[in-house]
């Protein structure tokens, strides 16, 4: 009797398990980002922009034979541990065919190194800018739609030299992002341009006081402090304490410091001598198309990394379509859909792209943030501008070369 009951129960369970598989399988991609942690204020717009790409794909025919593309959001918390956890869940439990994100360089390096590269899954980050990502032994599976900080650090050094900055002190966050950017800046400013860096010091995040750090940095007589940190996190505390105590006259930040939190909390009137560099989408037809579409769903197209996030998700969708949904082919397909040859595809033109892929025609995605022609390391070149704080938030001072 007992055995019979067991058999029935087992049979029922198998039946429900079978019934829960839908007729048309969803195709999942992971959208990993720093939802909590130091860049939490930037993450929502980035995730929304990526979801916009997913939404456009589904409105215009979906993936393959009309399957739905699903963006599975995961929290990488902007640290290596969080990145690994979120990527493991996405790859092993959700069974994604590709990963868009994580956002922070440390999380990208950890997620790629321990999860996506061993699994052979393509990963494309919209904002992981550390030069270290270029050097990953990734078998061609790691991409980014944002230029390496090697470019940004060097461009910032050249621009500062042009703008007449003299002796500077550099404070950077002790993680992959801060270290990579600071070292690129240092090698250009000192070695190439003959500038002087009086103090060059890392700091840990999350402390309540950085006044002793600032006092050390101020030794050597620099009048400018260069901060490579996040404006929602420790960078804000450092900038506040430097302003309050008058340690420096002028402040320069990297892209992490170009956060609205800085203006909201310190007040624009106190930030007259603060400038920050940031990647900018070169003006293009593609950028306008993205801006209009993102405004249409209630997003702010000027939010930092919104356009790169959109491009990353759209490129991932194109690559998945090109690879016919086979996750081992997605990375190779990523190279093919944006290598400069073929029929141009602009943001939102999913239907056109789908038809061309089906016909076997080569396509070339021209993204909102740039053309995204990947080099052998999966990197893209970029354009930057230097921003100052005006009456309506950040305003461009000059393009950076």
């Amino acid at each position, binding site marked *: 009797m007992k055995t019979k009951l067991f058999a029935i129960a087992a049979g029922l369970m198998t039946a429900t398990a079978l019934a829960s598989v839908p007729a048309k399988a969803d195709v999942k991609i992971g959208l990993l980002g720093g*939802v*909590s*942690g130091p860049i*939490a*204020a930037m993450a929502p717009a980035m995730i929304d922009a990526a979801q916009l790409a997913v939404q456009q794909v589904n409105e215009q025919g979906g993936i393959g034979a009309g399957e739905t593309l699903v963006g599975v959001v995961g929290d990488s918390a902007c640290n290596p541990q969080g990145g690994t956890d979120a990527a493991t869940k996405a790859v092993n439990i959700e069974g994604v065919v590709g990963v868009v994100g994580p956002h922070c360089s440390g999380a990208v390096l950890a997620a790629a190194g321990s999860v996506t590269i061993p699994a052979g899954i393509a990963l494309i980050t919209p904002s992981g800018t550390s030069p270290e990502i270029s050097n990953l032994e990734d078998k061609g599976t790691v991409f980014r739609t944002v230029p390496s900080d090697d470019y940004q650090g060097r461009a910032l050094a050249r621009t500062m030299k042009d703008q007449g900055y003299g002796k500077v002190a550099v404070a950077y966050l*002790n993680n992959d992002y801060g270290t990579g950017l600071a070292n690129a800046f240092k090698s250009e400013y000192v070695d190439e341009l003959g500038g002087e860096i009086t103090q060059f*010091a*890392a*700091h*840990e*995040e*999350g*402390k*309540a*006081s950085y*006044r*002793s*750090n*600032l*006092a*050390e940095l101020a030794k050597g007589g620099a009048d400018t402090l260069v901060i490579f940190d996040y404006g*929602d*996190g420790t960078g*804000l*505390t450092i900038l*506040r304490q430097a*302003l*309050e*105590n*008058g340690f420096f006259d002028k402040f320069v930040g990297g892209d992490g410091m170009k956060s609205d*939190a800085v203006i*909201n*909390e*310190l*007040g624009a*009137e*106190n930030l007259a001598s603060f400038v920050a560099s940031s990647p900018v989408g070169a003006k293009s037809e593609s950028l306008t198309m993205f801006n209009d579409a993102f405004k249409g769903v209630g997003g702010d197209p000027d939010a930092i990394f919104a356009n790169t996030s959109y491009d990353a998700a759209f490129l991932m969708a194109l690559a998945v379509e090109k690879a016919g949904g086979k996750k081992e082919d997605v990375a190779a397909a990523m190279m093919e859909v944006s290598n400069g040859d073929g029929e141009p595809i602009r943001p939102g033109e999913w239907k056109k792209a789908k038809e061309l892929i089906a016909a076997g025609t080569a396509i070339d995605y021209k993204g909102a943030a740039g053309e995204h022609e990947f080099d052998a390391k999966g990197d893209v070149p970029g354009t930057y501008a230097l921003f100052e704080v005006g009456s309506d938030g950040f305003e461009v001072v000059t393009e950076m070369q």
Partner: protein
Amino acid sequence: MELFELINFYLVPGIVLGSIYALGAVGITLIFAILRYAHLAHGDLATLGAFIALAAVTSLGVSPLAALPVAILATAAIAVGIDKVFYNHLRERPKIVTVMASLGIALMIRAVVQVVWGVDTQTYSRGIVRPEDYFGIRIRDREIYTILAMLVLVGALQMFLTQSKWGKAMRAMSDNPNLALLSGIDNKKVVMLTWIIAGGLCAASGFFLGYNTELKSMMGWHMLLPMFAAAILGGVGRVEGAVLGGLIVGIAEELSVLVIPSEYKAAMAFAILLFMLLVRPTGLLKGKVL
């Protein structure tokens, strides 16, 4: 280095930071002494207190200092509630179970803060406050308030513990719980009183951290280790020891930048904690050995 530079940029921030640590460490030391476990949710309870004060500031439009009593009362009530709902059921189990449970509570409190107030960095008042110059010593008003409030709150607690009937009961529970129970001390009331005091001080500590810098959902968690280092350094169960420990940890963190690279500043609390546990586990003022 000039004397005033040392005072302004190393000692003053160290003392202010130390006062904030001290407020948290007093609560930790009381819970350690009376309930006999390490309360890992202390940092996040401080975060909650700081955000409750923010809610009072934004909704009632009062000044931040006026919001402090509101935060202290509300957090004390929440601390008592957490004890009733969670820790109370674990009282008869091995203490390590409660320690682990408190880690879970820490995550829950942080999640509540993130859900209600979001994850953006916030402040009580917008803009920056430059320090005043008092005969060469540069100090901000809010830093004076922080140090004064710490001294007043801890002084009042010390008075309560030594002079009042219930304070004596708490000390008796800390010295010998069995004997205290035999002599008719109401265990439940002592536990509740402990949580009211610890929760209130916790809120004050989180409030002053937010008042001097910014409010972030992770702010309390980052303070947990220095607060534990301060409690153990001063001697577990000794209120004045926790204050001394807090000030030493705070000043040592700031001064450490003079001798070690600044990225290792955060390791200072670890170093102190390890050194004390190895060399003098009773702490500076002869507290309990755990």
